[in-house]
């Protein structure tokens, strides 16, 4: 996925189309303005050296419970 922020106007409509989401042109323009913030947030996660060999906070339980909630 691109991190070149100047490519927002190309990347945003493309990614939305791939996801099958169809906002109005005005909304696509607004989302293009948010795109750099979101991509910079994601990119910042890879700049944490201590995370290089860390495991993610994801737990998969091989003996799960399936209790209903009522």
């Amino acid at each position, binding site marked *: 996925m691109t991190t070149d922020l100047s490519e927002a106007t190309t990347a945003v409509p493309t990614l*939305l189309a791939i996801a099958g989401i169809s906002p109005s042109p005005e909304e696509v323009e607004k*989302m293009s303005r948010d795109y750099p913030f979101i991509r910079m*947030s994601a990119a*910042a*996660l890879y700049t944490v050296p201590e*995370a290089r060999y860390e495991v993610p906070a994801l737990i998969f339980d091989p003996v799960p419970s399936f209790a209903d*909630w*009522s």
Partner: protein
Amino acid sequence: MTEIPITLTEAGAALRSGSLTSVELTKAALAKAAELDSELGVYLARLDEIALARAEQADAELASGVDLGPLHGIPVGIKDILATSDSPTTANSLILDHAWGEGKDGPVVRRLREGGAVITGKVTTMEFAIGMPDFSKPFPIPRNPWNLETWPGGSSSGTGAGVAAGLFHAGIGTDTGGSIRIPAAFCGVSGLMPTYGRVPKTGCAPLGYSLDHIGPLARSAEDCGAFLQVIAGYDASDIYCSTKPVPDFNADLTGSLEGVTIGVDRVNHSFDTGDPGAAEQYEAALATLTDLGATLVDVTLPYFAETNAALFVTMLSEALAYHMPDLQSRWGDYFAATRKMIAGGVFVSGADYVQAQRVRRVAQKALAELYTEVDLIVTPTASIGSPSYDTLEKREIMEMFGKIFTGYWDVMGNPALVVPMGFTETGLPVSMQLAARPFEEALLVKAGNAYQQETEWHLMIPPLAAGTPAAA
């Protein structure tokens, strides 16, 4: 005529002394709703008859010596993303399938009923607990009782506004990035986000599976502790729910903070772009903590920026997974802000999501190390009071969230309590946030209660709601 107590703790004492009945308390709450709700937009569904019947039952139970706990006979509101067996659940949205949760109570609502709470209705939220109101959709616009032109905060908007204006004594909120604490702060009440997993969240429409918390908004820290006592504890239906024992959250309300070390992070919590008056109120609140015996030391929250980045990546990814089919087929039925925010999840990759969970582990480790030096950490909840709807439309949402300091704790999973600490120069409430080690909510309640024994900010009533009706 009996004066209606402001806090649920006082109301509970009055019920038990016989100086007040639950029916009187409930009628007063319903009268307040009849008077104010057309302006405040708190309720999506009022349950007046059911509430009065439950209040009558509570009076009979208490009179016969049956005491179901601190919420017995107390009017409470339920955020409308929790399913309730006796009323529809909408998530404040045209999207939610009404068959979901129909006729069912999740564990939290069931515990409230078993605890004798008088559920007065389902209250407004930001759609699916995210975004902003959409004036074009057929739902009430929640307004802040301190200034009707301003937002009460979100996403637990109706709960915050309802507690502040006296439409009920306490209520349920949920918190994924601050949705208990932001409306509590903006409406001038207290709010407690418990440790992740402390309260089961099945029966609640999800926003971020690994970030969602259910907790109370109420007048005081003590009220929040009493409320949490009723809803906390393991339930097998929530795979994320903790089996840790539930302590007495209000067991140590001594009014003293002797021996408690509190870290103050000024590095990541600036008032530079905040509202006039907010910084002064915060300094006064810190001075009160010192007067109460606490030792304040400067700290820096580790990985603050990276953790907030992890919040966005995690929340957008988890929310998008839930909403994708509806975003594809019913885009226009969503609120404008909801669909725009959640669709931002398509800009995040699967690898980004996993990396966010790796960063969470790194930050947790560093934060746990910091908590070997301090017992609590204090920050402002936000550097601003509630924004006006006019400016909210124009304001960049990311810019606004740079002035709100709640999201870090959702990502970490630590419990956090917010309490009112005064007003901005324009008369809007501002708030202090205290965060503890995981599962140390009791220390938060102790600290918040000590602060509230020395201050009266939590007892302030918005002028709009002044003249709380006496019981007939």
